């Protein structure tokens, strides 16, 4: 019975996953289980397979070997869009065309479109939800601004708002604080932690920069060369000798990982 209880609580289960892009093997035999409500940090050097691991979870990365169950369904490379409706994804800031004809409120509403389905228009209640979430992430005053006119930090707030209106069961954050300034990084990290505290969504947070690791992390996964190299509690992993081996360069333990300010 104990095993069964474990099953019910497991939202992600990956067994021996291998993913390759042309000749490169991006993941070589990764196994991972994630329980409902966990906040997991995934760290490692560039090219370690962190982003690929996230794409396996949302069904966009194709397994050449191994199996993955996410939210109760076995991924088989097809019909992934139904799964993606239940998974929020925030990527790192990208360069976008400042002339793009879509504003903040509209781009946040896109989060609802998957669940809403084809041929149905957003309802007034959904627009109200969008406005409420914009308020929560501190973007209400920018709701009519074209997304191409946002700063990096504002753009990420909008991306997080979009993931929230999706009401996801899993939240995937792929370097959400890369290439934004330090102050905005702190604000975004704080927002992410507040959201986890409020909604307890299962969250996977990928970063190559140890200084942007939220303190709320319950488990740290260290990836290297397409494999999970080590994993454990942040206390046991954030040690100089472990990190130096991981990055193959002298690495210092961040003096403090980003605390939650309420």
């Amino acid at each position, binding site marked *: 019975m104990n095993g069964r209880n474990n099953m019910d609580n497991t939202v992600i289960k990956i067994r021996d996953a291998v993913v390759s892009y*042309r000749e490169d093997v991006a993941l070589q035999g990764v196994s991972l289980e994630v329980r409902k409500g966990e906040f997991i940090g995934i760290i490692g050097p560039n090219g370690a397979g962190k982003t690929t691991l996230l794409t396996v979870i*949302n069904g*966009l990365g194709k397994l050449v070997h191994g199996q993955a169950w996410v939210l109760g369904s076995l991924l088989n490379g097809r019909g992934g*869009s*139904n*799964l*993606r*409706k*239940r*998974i929020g*994804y925030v*990527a790192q*800031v990208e*360069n*976008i*065309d*400042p*002339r*793009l*004809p*879509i*504003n903040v409120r*509209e*781009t946040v509403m*896109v*989060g609802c*479109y*998957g*669940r*809403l389905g*084809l*041929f149905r*228009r*957003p309802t007034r209640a959904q627009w109200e939800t969008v406005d409420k979430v914009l308020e929560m992430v501190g973007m209400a005053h920018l709701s009519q601004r*074209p*997304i*191409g*006119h946002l*700063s*990096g*930090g*504002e*753009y990420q707030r909008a*991306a997080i708002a*979009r993931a929230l209106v*999706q009401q996801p069961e899993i939240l995937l954050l792929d370097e959400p604080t890369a*290439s*934004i*300034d330090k*102050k*905005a*990084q702190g*604000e975004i990290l704080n927002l992410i932690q507040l959201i986890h505290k409020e909604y307890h969504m299962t969250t996977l947070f990928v970063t190559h920069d140890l200084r942007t690791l939220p303190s709320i992390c319950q488990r740290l996964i260290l990836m290297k060369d397409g494999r999970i190299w080590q994993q454990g509690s942040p206390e046991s992993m954030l040690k100089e000798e472990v990190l130096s081996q991981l990055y193959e360069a002298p690495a210092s333990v961040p003096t403090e990982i980003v605390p939650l300010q309420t």
Partner: protein
Amino acid sequence: MDFSILQYHFMQNAILAGLFGGITCSVVGVFVVTMHLSFIGVCIAHAAFAGALLGLWLGFNPLIGALLFSLASAAIIGPVADRGELNPDTSIGIVFSLMLGLAFLFMGLMPGARTEALNLFWGGILTVTQQDIIFLAVITGVIGGLVAAFYKEIQAVICHREVALAVGIPATIIFYGLLFSTGVTITASLQSIGGLLIYSLILNPAAAAYQLTYSLKRMLLIAVAFGVISCWVGLLASYFFDIPSGAAIVITSAIIFGLATAFSPKRKVKGWQQAPLAG
């Protein structure tokens, strides 16, 4: 102005062709311009042209040739551009030059006077038939209906396809739907605007509208207005100054683009770009 020309049957046909052609070309133009895929559109246009010439040479309906070639080119270019194995510029450039090569090959192989083939080059909005107009009208209706039905998905896909995919929108199907719509639109407008000129009517009104607004709905309306105005003004110019109609339409649309750019409120946008991506 003397409006007695409107009494001529051929002029009424031309005005209708300009209306429907202007609407559909501008609508699909908004999609390719927003996706920054203008060159894919150029390529599809030339494929349609080559297909039509193949039809003329082998004696089947040129529209069928145009449709097959434009859809096939969209089906080839889409994945190549997506997979990133070759630089999209390179692969699209190769398909584009191949299509132009095929067009000239089919023309060279064609026996006889080639008047019809040259018509496909320049288009003849003043000589469109009732049948051409009905075809254009049906395509306009279908594309308009599809845009209305899938508006929210289309907006998500053309503005940020990765995001659309990640929230569970069938982004790939919508993307290919847009490319195929471009192929169908080009096919339907080939007779009236001409293979070499059709693309300007797709690109110019949409690019002009892109300069003027941040709202997709408004952009669609402005582009459609510019497209229809280009057709009608070009048509009148062609009649009064006795110049080729297709050329007059394209030049009008280019002038509208020039004016829109000159008066664009988005010119200030440069300042935004220079500002660092920072908090």
